């Protein structure tokens, strides 16, 4: 571990901390309706789509609108992929995508997962990428943000039947947040050397004299939204390890910041809109602490490398000239600190963009990436999704520990009663179910085992990672598993849809239930949610709940592998 590495960690923390406040203020303006710079465009959209922007939807209508929008746009993508061969902007003449693959991909982009079990450059036409994926990159991110905004309204309003208007939230999130941010970032990326072209692939001769086809494409525009919308789907199969996607150390740093920007801003927006800025910062700090712990553990594990290598006399100590540690699957351009940092952030924040191959991490480094997702998108998490997942954890924490102060549980003036607990429990149940059930099935059924490249605990880690990533709408992969089979395509598609929409509906229900309530005024008898103690408590509940659920599976996967590697066995 080097000073340079830790400086990168510190620099990221400081940058995100500094950007949280302005981003939060911006989000407050967007979702409370006070921003109106593009009012003419907004009004035009509402007129064309026949939306009444003043209609305040109860949670059932909000959920209905959200689901309708998602289902329709997913069907549209499925059709475009199936009809790809007949559609324009297809210089490589790529054919129709197979049905199960098209279903999985449509589900993947609609759910903000961007799980790609195909090589983008050789499967998807420019038309598919530009009209469908870029559209979903924006729309799915705006959907996640809308649900979070609705939850914030539920917590902050009193005696209100409505939690906002989905269509308005969708349009405003796109118009005022995602598009401008992507535009600026895309320009910076282009300036740094990310390509943006509709040119056909370039054939080049390498130094060794071999002919190589260099895939090209409109990369920078997709790159920007891939990161700010915590989508993660790369233009190229190599994702952000590809120099056309992520050309310089600066773009690498900006990519990590871009992943965290909106999720971090949401904590600030939340704190402000629920009139408890301190509570917002407590959430931020809990996320930050969990991120730091994961990052440090991953960095430690990767920097110390593989004990089997060390035993054979390989120099694993990092210096200014030797990356040291475990460099398998990592870009030499980025080295260990930038790779572990990227891996930690991308799994914590549900992005799924990668600049190194997580499958090649040491067992403990791999464990961190998996656990980050399994904790439930609460470490900054996806745009919007991070906040609402964290609030769900807070509800459970407040309920479990809140009783200890001698009052029925109360959160920011709202009573947590049977029906609130009901939806929070449902939310907490769906996620592990979506991961563990298909993992267990795939671990014993021939259809599941057929795709495995590695045996032993590492093979199990690959299956577990895949379902963790899809259920958590992350999209990154342990590459050892070839997910292109009908079995996996279908399961992944279903798991992604479950991990997204089956969890969003309870969130909206909670928003509705809380919004209907009045507000109990604070007193010194109220359960405190703005203290360090609460932060510690929240971390404990997140850790214990995550550990309770996934510890057995992890013990048989990365943990077992860790001890076996230390004993000299590799997989």
């Amino acid at each position: 571990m080097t000073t340079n590495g830790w400086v990168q960690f510190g620099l990221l923390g400081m940058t995100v901390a500094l950007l949280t406040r302005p981003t939060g203020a911006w989000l407050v303006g967007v979702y409370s309706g006070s921003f109106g710079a593009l009012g003419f465009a907004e009004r035009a959209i509402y007129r064309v789509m026949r939306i009444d922007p003043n209609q305040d939807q109860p949670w059932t209508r909000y959920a209905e609108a959200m689901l309708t929008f998602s289902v329709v746009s997913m069907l549209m993508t499925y059709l475009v992929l199936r009809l790809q061969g007949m559609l324009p902007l297809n210089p490589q003449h790529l054919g129709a995508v197979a049905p199960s693959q098209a279903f999985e991909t449509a589900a993947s982009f609609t759910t903000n997962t961007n799980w790609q079990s195909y090589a983008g450059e050789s499967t998807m036409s420019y038309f598919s990428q530009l009209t469908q994926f870029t559209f979903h990159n924006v729309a799915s991110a705006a959907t996640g943000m809308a649900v979070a905004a609705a939850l914030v309204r539920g917590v902050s309003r009193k005696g209100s039947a409505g939690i906002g208007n989905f269509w308005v939230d969708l349009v405003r999130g796109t118009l005022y947040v995602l598009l401008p941010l992507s535009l600026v970032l895309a320009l910076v990326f282009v300036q740094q050397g990310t390509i943006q072209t509709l040119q056909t692939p370039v054939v080049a001769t390498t130094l060794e004299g071999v002919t190589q086809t260099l895939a090209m494409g409109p990369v920078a525009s997709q790159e920007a939204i891939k990161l700010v919308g915590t989508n993660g789907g790369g233009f190229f199969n190599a994702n952000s390890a590809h120099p056309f996607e992520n050309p310089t150390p600066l773009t690498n740093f900006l990519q990590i910041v871009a992943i965290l920007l909106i999720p971090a801003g949401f904590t600030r927006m939340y704190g402000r809109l629920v009139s408890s800025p301190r509570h917002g910062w407590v959430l931020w700090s809990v996320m930050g602490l969990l991120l730091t712990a994961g990052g440090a553990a991953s960095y430690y594990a990767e920097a110390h490398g593989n004990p089997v290598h060390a035993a054979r006399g390989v120099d694993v100590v990092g210096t200014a000239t030797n990356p040291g540690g475990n460099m398998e699957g990592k870009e030499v351009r980025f080295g260990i600190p930038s790779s572990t940092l990227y891996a930690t952030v991308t799994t914590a924040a549900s992005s799924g963009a990668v600049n190194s191959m997580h499958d090649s991490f040491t067992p403990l480094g791999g464990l961190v990436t998996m656990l980050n997702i399994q904790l439930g998108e609460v470490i900054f998490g996806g745009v919007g999704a991070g906040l609402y997942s964290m609030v769900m954890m807070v509800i459970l924490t407040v309920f479990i520990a809140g009783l200890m102060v001698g009052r029925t549980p109360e959160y920011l003036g709202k009573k947590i009663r049977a029906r609130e607990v009901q939806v929070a429990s449902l939310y907490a149940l769906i996620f592990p179910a979506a991961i563990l059930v298909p993992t267990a099935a795939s671990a014993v059924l021939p259809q599941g085992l057929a795709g495995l490249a590695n045996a032993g605990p590492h093979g199990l880690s690959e299956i577990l990672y895949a379902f963790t990533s899809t259920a958590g709408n992350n999209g990154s992969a342990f590459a050892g598993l070839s997910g292109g089979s009908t079995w996996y395509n279908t399961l992944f598609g279903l798991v992604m849809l479950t991990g997204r929409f089956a969890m969003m509906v309870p969130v909206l229900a909670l928003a509705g239930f809380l919004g209907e309530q009045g507000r109990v005024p604070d007193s010194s008898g109220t359960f405190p949610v703005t203290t360090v103690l609460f932060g510690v408590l929240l971390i404990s509940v997140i850790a214990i709940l995550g550990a309770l659920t996934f510890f057995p599976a992890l013990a048989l996967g990365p943990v077992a592998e860790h001890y076996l590697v230390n004993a000299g066995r590799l997989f």
Partner: protein
Amino acid sequence: MPTPSDPARGAVARRALREAVVKLHPRSMRQNPVMLVVYVGALLTTVLLARDLAFHPGDSSPAFTAQLAIWLWFTVLFANFAEAVAEGRGKAQADTLRASRTRTRARKLDDPTQPDHYYYVSSNELERGDFIVCLPGDVIAGDGEVVAGVASVDESAITGESAPVVRESGGDRSAVTGGTKVLSDFLVVRITAGPGETFLDRMIALVEGAGRQKTPNELALTILLAGLTLILILTVVTLEPLARYAGTRLAVPVLVALLVCLIPTTIGGLLSAIGIAGMDRLIRQNVIAMSGRAVEAAGDVDTLLLDKTGTITLGNRHAVSLHPVGGVDDHYLAACALSASNADETPEGRSIVALARSRYGQKTPSEGDVRVLPFSASTRMSGIDDEVHSVRKGAGDAVTRWVREHGGLIAPELQALVESIARGGGTPLVVAERLHGVNGSVRVLGVIHLKDVVKAGMRERFERLRAMGIRTVMITGDNPLTAAAIASEAGVDDFLAEARPEDKMALVKREQLGGRLVAMTGDGTNDAPALAQADVGVAMNSGTQAAKEAGNMIDLESNPTKLIEVVEVGKQLLMTRGALTTFSIANDVAKYFAILPAMFLTTYPALASLNIMRLHSGNSAILSSVIFNALVIIALIPLALRGVRSRPAPASVILRRNLVLYGGGGLIVPFAGIKLIDMALVAMHLV
């Protein structure tokens, strides 16, 4: 209320043991999802044990499975026992109450105006609306309203209070309870409750916990625990295929053991006991809660509305000083005050007599030709007329009007004096005299300063409430000046002066509109609407039937300050639930470290590094965890019944303390406990 004495405790425990087995009936197990899972697990393990014993498959170890099965059944029984013990205390009290419900003869009247014309009927034939007459020595046959007569009644059967109380027609002391005994005089009572629905019947049902419904928070907690249990079932069920992938087969009893250890059995097993014990603690305070919901609400109370008189202050005012005006000698004022009050039997009157004697050395005047004028609401004065003079004492404006009517003059300093006493929270009582005879002059002699006496210790109690975040509001009919002075002396946070009955209701509603939960006490019929509106309404047992119907709790001792204890019991109940939930969940960390390495010892021996407790073997690790899990329920029964200690402190302080104790304890204790049990099992060669 009579509480079972020590020898009865053995009987309670015996009854609870029997009940614990009876509760194994699936119908009662169904109430509790967490324990139902343990129950099914125990059944499954027993069936598998029987199979092993019958067919001797090669890989079975019946001794281990048998021990597992036994401890799983113990886990269920311990939880049932906890509930039975909690209920048992109520049952013992119900028995005592039932003894006073013996069938009695009632003297029924056809015409309530003719109490001599009665005939005997059995008490269980009395219908609502019947009239009965009760003579000394009669046990009152049913709940009712006194329509005629005054009598002293022994209510000790209900309240445990041996001092008899007065019951009379009209006003706020007209309600009588079946099962109580008339000691003197007679009462004509209109029966207000049919057979089986009397107060005593309801009370027996309440203390017995019959038909107990889950309270809202208990329901919410049950949902959470069920959710957690489902998640853990998922975890354990999917572990089997994952283990198969790793090349090992997990025996079903081992999976059951893991599941039972992980699901929140500690809180699941004790949850209903905590709720019942909370009601029971209230009963020990002689407060009957009509629903568990009210007890829970008590913990949430933000605002306490307290009547000034009788709650914050002693019911009566005391004379503290005399202030002569217009150059009158203070001893003369004392003498006149004494003679005017000599026949006044009210506590105020007696305190004036006492003051005149002790401080001014006045002697009781000899009984002469004295005409006593008792206090009347129309004149708002009292006094005497004798041979020499007439003396009047009363409210300032009433007495000055009397002086003016008789052509007297008012001393100029009187007004200021009266106001200064009122401002200080006192009640000024003006004394005036009119000399008889030809030149009979009329003059104001001075002012008696009567003062409300704040009960001892009230200030400290309000401070404790404030520390818990509860605001107290004093309600009084006094003018704002007086009210403010007493409020500041008693240390309440706010007051409502010149309150009429309907103002109380308005205040309750106003507080609730702001999202606050309100608790209040009341006894009069005009309190009933506010009692019904309040979240916690404690009716005094001495109060009217209407008040008792409206409130959701009844204080048998009729002590209005009891509200404070009620709030504390409510808080304690919720705290105990939270503490045991936290403890239960924190326990799982140690259990994972005990069981998981044990399960995969053969496949991945390297996982033995996770066996940080260095437990003897796989079987001993699993068995120790299950035994710890069962024993911890027994160990925590006293805490569940007694409740977590509640302290008057802000939520943040309480949280820190309970979190360290029950969260930290929950993490550490099982590591030590499981290790100790493991050592014991090894020493006894049980594994």
